[in-house]
């Protein structure tokens, strides 16, 4: 039996397998993880308490505005792009109705790719305000 030659690609497989198996073994053999809670020292005076309340509400309002802006701008640009794609497809179909079947899967693919950029904005919005 001839021995197979070891190629460069085979040398990639071993680190990959070691990384996968090793990380699984590492994570599942760790002892119970305690969630770290960094407690700030309790606010002492009335001034500190009101400052803490104000900063918390400012942060919450900032997060709401940021989430709304993220999804709003993403949807704006995405809708424009998809509109242009649909326009191009329909113009081509109106000039040459027989070719509509050939280009329809490609058009759906392009629409899904543009929509994925909108979804990135939505993910950011969800990360800001779950």
């Amino acid at each position, binding site marked *: 039996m001839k021995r197979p030659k070891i*190629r*460069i*690609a085979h040398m*990639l*497989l071993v680190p*990959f397998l070691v990384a996968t198996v090793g990380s699984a073994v590492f*994570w*599942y053999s*760790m002892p*119970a*993880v305690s*969630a770290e809670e960094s407690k700030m020292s309790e606010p002492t005076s009335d001034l500190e308490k009101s400052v803490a309340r104000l900063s918390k509400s400012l942060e919450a309002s900032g997060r709401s505005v940021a989430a709304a802006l993220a999804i709003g701008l993403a949807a704006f640009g995405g809708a424009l792009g998809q509109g242009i794609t649909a326009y191009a497809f329909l113009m081509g179909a109106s000039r040459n109705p027989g070719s509509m079947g050939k280009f329809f899967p490609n058009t*759906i*693919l392009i629409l*899904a*790719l543009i*929509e*994925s950029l909108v*979804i*990135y904005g*939505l*993910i950011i919005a*969800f*990360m800001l305000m*779950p």
Partner: protein
Amino acid sequence: MPENMTWWNFLPFYQALLEWTRAKLGITWIAKVPIGIGHTMGFLFVALLVILAGFAVHQRTRKTASALIPDGRMTLRNFFELFSEILLGLMEPIMGRPAAIYFLPLIGTVGTIIMISNLLGLIPGFAPPTSNLNTTASMAVVIFFLTHYYGLKTQGIKYFRHFLGPIIKWYALPLMVFMFVIEVISHLTRPVSLSVRLMGNMFADHMLVAMFTLLAPLVVPIPLIAIGLLICVIQALVFCLLSVIYISMAIAPEEH
């Protein structure tokens, strides 16, 4: 985004498994919530379905006498033969016939798993396993490693000429370094985009149906579930097509 109640919660060992996982793994890294195992249960169910379907179809397609003639009606074997034909028709213009036949098991498995996982979310009470970044990222990272593996396997060390840009002479060293950085970044964003696209679509769709069920219960979610059906098929198709394009770009020989 806390863990929702799905049908998997009624399994007898679910609560014990959940507490064991939470003790070992703690808090998720991105969303900072305690970890849930709903997506693992769903994904194992999908894997079980795919394995069972594979066994059921394998018997019929091995005996060569009866394998040539398709069945009269729509059976599981006909469905998978149709599916393979469609995938081959998708892959052939991009990769050429021998490579398409070689990669059909990979793309077929990925496509089947993603399609069944997405469709599982349309049933009320189930969450699609692909609405969680863990499942989608696992598939995207595997495809990422496989593109480089097959690129190296077909082309050897010359695979790295892909990264160096159009001019590969010693006097174009700054351009080569610049192109290398850009190509590495664009290669690294590929699994991110593949996984986040699929996860975002499924998660957003599920969240929309949930919100509209809260607001206007009986009639309004129905068109949303219809659009969800369209979206889940399209997203499975886009994942498969993009991974085919990445693999074909990696194994294509350099043309001058």
